[in-house]
């Protein structure tokens, strides 16, 4: 019976660790965004929210790989499809990240260009000397570089995993899922509150 750490067929431990690291790393700026929103009391603009969405969408790539690594017990009974081959799974996952990263990079660049004129104070408070959209630009560049590298060496890195997911995998997926749910709740609550306030004003 293969175990959760039985990944030696193709990629070995590196191929198993990379999606975890990718998903964990993309969760850090999303947590930081909550810190800025609730501790510093700075509400995000539309472009900030769009960049946040792109980060979540970029994280769906490694999440795809982690959640679909053949574990028959976790595949829904109604799902009619057989497990993907490791290489196809790996390529599709990081393909998702490339698409999301390119879109996020465009949005971050757009926001940087909106504030590029001299003496423009920028939007929001800078974090460690840079505004959040500048950080987002760097993060999306890293997403593209990492995804490109993983696709380039897909044949070597793609793990041929069969077995149950480890606790680390579930913790990584759980943290990312909690961030998605939290964002959905916060944005929906604000949209409804804004709608109610607009209704009161009429």
């Amino acid at each position, binding site marked *: 019976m293969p175990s959760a750490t039985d990944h030696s067929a193709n990629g070995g431990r590196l191929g198993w660790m990379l999606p975890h690291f990718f998903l964990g790393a993309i969760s850090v700026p999303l947590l930081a965004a909550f810190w800025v929103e609730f501790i510093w009391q700075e509400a995000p*603009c*539309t*472009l900030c*929210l*769009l960049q946040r*969405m*792109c980060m*979540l*969408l970029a994280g*769906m790539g490694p*999440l*795809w790989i982690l*959640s*679909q690594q053949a574990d028959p017990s*976790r*595949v*829904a009974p*109604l*799902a009619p*499809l057989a497990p*993907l081959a490791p290489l196809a799974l790996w390529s599709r996952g990081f393909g*998702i990240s490339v*698409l*999301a990263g390119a*879109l996020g990079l*465009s*949005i971050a660049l*757009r*926001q940087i260009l*909106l*504030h590029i004129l001299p003496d423009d104070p920028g*939007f929001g408070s800078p974090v460690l000397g840079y505004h959040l959209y500048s950080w987002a630009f760097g993060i999306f560049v890293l997403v593209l570089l990492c995804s490109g590298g993983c696709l380039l060496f897909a044949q070597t890195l793609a793990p041929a995993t069969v077995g149950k997911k480890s606790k680390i995998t579930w913790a990584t*997926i759980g943290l*990312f*899922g909690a961030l*998605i*749910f939290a*964002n*959905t709740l916060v*944005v*929906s609550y*604000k*949209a409804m509150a804004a*709608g109610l306030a607009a209704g009161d004003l009429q």
Partner: protein
Amino acid sequence: MIEAGIFFLLTILFLALVRGYRTLAVVVFLLCFTFILFDFLYHATSPLSLSL
């Protein structure tokens, strides 16, 4: 409001991935990507964006 809808779609995408519904996940991913792209394009071409 559209942002709340996209986050809701992202939630569905997450659940579809975790539960193993690959076809649904691909469809929802493409929907998310399209909505984010069009929301961005709308924002980029809107006169309101000049007020940022």
